């Protein structure tokens, strides 16, 4: 290959870079190839989403005839926006709230995720504050205990937790979906880390001004740690939104389902043979989260990198 031959050295001000054929970092020799690979990868990443949206706008006829592009200019079909309301109707009616079941699923998901995020922020910031700022007897032992629970994988205690829900009388209630998730060891760690970095002088100054711990936490610590707070809120939200196994286990009635369970049940039932409707529902579920991610992505990637979290 000609490109592997040694080429003349490129001299830049300040430093010398000897460029050789394989040196794609600097010469830009392989740059078109790099872009080509990256673009192919990006297409593979995005492809399924594009198919999802395209299919959600096809008629049933075009779907079963495998018509790739039934719309103008190649075809005559109009965009089938009515698939969306039809899919929602197809999922069913919730007589308890007098609304379409799919809206009930969405409301359940929002309610659960919202409550869990608020609860986690509250319990984690209180505990993290006590660990970071208050001189408590036995604090280190308690912190070790928190450390230890991080090693308990959630699946290990799945059965006893389900049994516990039955015994508390929480089966098929919002309490079962929310209460077990109101604390977060990750949250306590993360916030404690940030709280410890706040200079102690600030605390002394605040005390002189007559502020107490509660006020100091609320108006100094939390605002100063807002990156960590946002990270925690984002992660908790995404985790809660993606819950599937737990709601499947602890709810029975269709009107207690969250979006994930609702979508899976639709897929396993009526929706299995009408991919256009299933894709319409998937689009409704996916697009808000993706949009949310695109808006907050800077926080997100940073948070993933600093915490190394795998959801």
């Amino acid at each position, binding site marked *: 290959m000609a490109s592997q031959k040694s080429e003349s050295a490129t001299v830049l001000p300040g430093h010398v870079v*000897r460029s050789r054929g394989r040196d794609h970092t600097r010469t830009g020799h392989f740059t078109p190839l790099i872009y080509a690979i*990256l673009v192919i990868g990006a297409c593979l990443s995005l492809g399924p989403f594009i198919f999802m949206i395209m299919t959600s706008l096809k008629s049933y006829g075009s779907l079963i005839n495998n018509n790739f592009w039934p719309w103008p200019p190649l075809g005559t079909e109009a965009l089938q926006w009515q698939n969306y309301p039809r899919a929602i109707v197809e999922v069913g009616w919730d007589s308890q709230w007098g609304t379409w079941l799919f809206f009930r699923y969405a409301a359940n998901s929002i309610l659960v995720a919202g409550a869990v995020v608020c609860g986690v922020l509250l319990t984690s910031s209180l505990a993290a504050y006590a660990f970071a700022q208050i001189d408590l007897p036995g604090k280190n032992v308690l912190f070790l205990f928190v450390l230890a629970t991080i090693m308990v994988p959630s*699946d290990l205690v799945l*059965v006893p*937790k389900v049994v516990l829900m039955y015994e508390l009388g929480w089966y098929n209630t919002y309490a079962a979906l929310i209460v077990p998730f109101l604390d977060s060891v990750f949250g306590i760690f993360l916030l404690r880390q940030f709280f410890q970095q706040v200079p102690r002088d600030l605390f002394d100054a605040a005390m002189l001004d007559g502020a107490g*711990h509660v006020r100091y936490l609320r108006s100094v610590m939390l605002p100063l740690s807002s990156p960590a707070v946002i990270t925690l809120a984002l992660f908790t939200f995404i985790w809660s939104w993606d819950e599937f196994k737990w709601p499947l286990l602890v709810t029975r009635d269709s009107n207690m389902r969250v979006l994930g369970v609702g*979508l899976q049940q639709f*897929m396993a039932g009526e929706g299995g043979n009408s991919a256009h409707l299933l894709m319409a529902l*998937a689009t409704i579920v996916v697009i808000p989260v993706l949009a949310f991610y695109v808006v907050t992505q800077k926080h997100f*990637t940073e948070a993933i990198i600093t915490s190394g979290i795998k959801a």
Partner: protein
Amino acid sequence: MKRVGPARRARRRREIALGYAFLAPAFVLLLVFEFFPIFYGLYISSCDWRLRCVSFVGLRNYVQALNDPAAWHSLLITATYAFISIPIQLVLGLFIAHLLFQKIRGRPVFRLIYFLPYITSSVAAASIWGYLYSPDQGPINAIMGVVGLQPLRWLGEPRGIFTLIASDFGMDLPSWASGPSLALLALIIFTTWVFTGYSITIFLAGLANIPKELNEAARVDGASGWQVFRLITLPLLSPTTYFLLVFTIIGTFKEFNHVYVLTQGGPGDSTMTAGIYIFNQLYSLNRYGYSAALSFLLFFVILVLTVLQNRFVGRRVVYG
């Protein structure tokens, strides 16, 4: 010792009380929903459990699990799944991260796009791929038809991939040589799509931590791009790689949502991973004690794997 006034002592007492009050909510929740269930689970696993402990059976559930061919099979499926998908995820992740790390335009956009599958809700992602793979209406078979390939049954195909390839040439393979089922391979392709973005993100962070001077010094000494990558980047990246390896192994052994929604373990038991097998014992068969025992055994397997990795791989990590 400094003399402490009563007012000050009262204040200190109030502070301590407040501190414990701050810890209380998190601790009550941790105790009830994380700590207590471990022991409760051990208890349930030694019971014949039907709404309550009908009879105490000691280790019988564990013995039964060790003699359960289906449980071993599910472990084999899980190991196959992990063994194929983890190297793909890591190598592909490193490859793309390395490309993204070059001086290229639009890096943030690429990063964003590669990460989207990971952030998508798992059930929705699985429903999309269920459609992509569908034998009659799915785009994948349609594309294969355009290229002139035979359509495949993908997620509905329990036969091994080697058997399928061999049958194209009119050969019959013995069952031990059939390889992982096509359904499992289809799942692996799907989860590669989901998780590679995560590896890319972590590898990019690792690459950013490698001091640039080392790279440049090697260049000045005439090292080729490949040499720099192999002798500098790769060793200095090893803490990141190790971290990813540990997390991906734990992740694949626990993997549930994506697999369950797509195949529920089928067809037959060809994609029945340990996570799904344990879940089915609980959800479909109401065998609480048995399911709890299986969870503890799976946890033990993961623990052993992690310790082994620490012994044999962790030792070779270079902390630069």
